[in-house]
């Protein structure tokens, strides 16, 4: 009963609701004059309240984090296999789609005209400016390797469509050129170029 000895009353006290009205009485703040008024010395009890509250908050966060983080990619999902692509299967002017990390990967064997069209537009105004040379491996201009998801909302663009002969996204009408650069429509970025390397002239390792 020490609690009462220190004059603590019920922490929340409200005046009865006025009939039909929706005002909460203004006197709530003053109903408990000893609490937080600063008159008493900031006692050990206040410290205990703060310390206990801090520990409880810390514990809540510690428990919440595993519940949140479990939704991030699991270990086996992160242990990604890399992918080897045999380029001899891709004929000139053709593009293949392969599933990599759950998404389509485009490997496009570009014709001379397509490369020339891409280089010609290097200086054209673009949303995400990049030269064609920066988007393929040195000396391998005929091979374009990009992740086949539209940078707008992730749909798979269709090969050869659109105003620039590269790809066209059917979902919201983004046009990509033969270098996979965004030229028209809502997508903010060029089709992403993944990490890849030529193992030989006819073999590419992605990832």
């Amino acid at each position: 009963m020490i609690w009462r000895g220190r004059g603590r009353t019920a922490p929340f006290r409200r005046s009865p609701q006025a009939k039909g009205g929706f005002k909460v009485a203004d006197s709530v703040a003053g109903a408990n004059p000893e609490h937080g008024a600063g008159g008493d010395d900031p006692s050990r009890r206040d410290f205990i309240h703060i310390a206990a509250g801090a520990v409880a908050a810390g514990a809540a966060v510690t428990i919440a984090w595993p519940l949140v983080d479990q939704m991030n990619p699991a270990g086996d999902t992160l242990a990604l296999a890399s992918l080897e692509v045999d380029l001899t299967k891709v004929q000139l002017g053709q593009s293949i789609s392969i599933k990599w990390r759950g998404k389509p990967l485009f490997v496009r064997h570009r014709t001379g005209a397509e490369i020339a069209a891409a280089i010609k537009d290097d200086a054209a105004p673009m949303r995400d400016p990049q030269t064609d040379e920066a988007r393929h491996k040195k000396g391998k201009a005929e091979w374009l390797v990009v992740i086949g998801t539209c940078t707008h909302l992730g749909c798979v663009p269709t090969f050869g469509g659109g105003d620039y002969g590269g790809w066209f996204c059917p979902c919201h009408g983004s046009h990509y050129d033969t270098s996979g650069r965004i030229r028209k429509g809502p997508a903010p970025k060029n089709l992403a170029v993944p990490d890849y390397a030529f193992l030989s002239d006819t073999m590419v390792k992605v990832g």
Partner: protein
Amino acid sequence: MSGHSSYVPKTGFERWLDARLPVARLAYDSLIDFPTPKNLNYWYTFGGILALCLGIQLATGIVLAMHYVPHVDYAFASIERIMRDVNYGWLIRYMHSNGASMFFIAVYAHMFRGLYYGSYKAPRELLWILGCVIYLLMMATAFMGYVLPWGQMSFHGAVVITNLFGALPIIGESITTWLWGGFAVDNATLNRFFSLHYLMPFMIAGVVILHVWALHVTGNNNPTGVQVQSKADTVPFHPYYTVKDGFAIAVFMLMFAAFVFFNPNALGHPDNYIPANPLVTPLHIVPEWYFLPFYAILRAVPDKLMGVLMMFGAIAVLFILPWLDTSRVRSLRYRPTTRMYFFIFVVACFVLGFCGGRLPDDKVIPGLTTFVLLDADLNSMVWLSRFATAYYFAYFLLVLPLMGLSETPLEQPASISEPVLSPSAALPAGATASPEKRG
């Protein structure tokens, strides 16, 4: 739930129960003796219809979960098994998939009714906001449910919607990876969507309890928008509104049954009967009809982040509506100018829904090419969506705040009973005056 209770326990058991856990008293006060304005029209029956819709979705959903397999390799096949092999599986699944559409038909009717009669205005702000929370939960639940069959529309719909969060700067990519549980929509995504799709209806049920509780504190609004003043303005909920709601439910169920039995795929999309293929996106990807207006708003904006913000903003604006409408008069019956703007708003919503189902470059008037304005032909769905989107926001952010200050409303009746008891004196001029009284 509030006010005095007129429940009188009749038997010894009821008295015993009432002293320990007064559930019978709660049910009596909420469903039988609850004083309800006597002038509620059929627009007020959608609350009861919605409660039934939730019950149907819960019951059919729990049964479907007994047969469904949440795995990318088996999900599609397990749905087909439900359709072909499980006893009455076809019926239960069609009830569930069409039930979602019925749920949204009812909720949109319920919301338009609230907008028309000013049911969001003081003292019912929280009642309205709880309703908005339910609507938001419904949309999340419906979206996740649509992903579960793992057809082409399921998969690519999930890709598009989860990618919306990728539009956020800096944190966007981490959020999408977190939502997916991987680097693309895959098995982890399907599993969690199934778990959440099962959870959320129960969250909806929880908020529905709060919604009904809030309703029973403030009491129903009514078509006049005038507060209940005496017992003469009300009738007990039972039998007057149990019967009226019951009749409306029966009519609604006729429509529901017509879809389930005669055209169960009318509201769906045939592409969702093609198993999901991450390598090919359907040429024309559309959400379910109840999301089309928001999809149109998303596509109306050429910038990715702005489009996403506008789409969510279209729902967020509903939450602050009670403070945007500045008028003292609730019902649009007595606000003729605002009423006109309201009907244009309803048309704008339908126009957005129409645009959302078409390709952005489709012509509004076939065969007519006008001129290119900024980035698209003026006679295209994208420009029509832009005009409708502008009106949608203008209605909430300009019309309602300004009309409340400038419009002179018609005279409201002094009470709900007054126009009934002395029609000639109380009817608003020109509203529903009987023909023989016209000079």
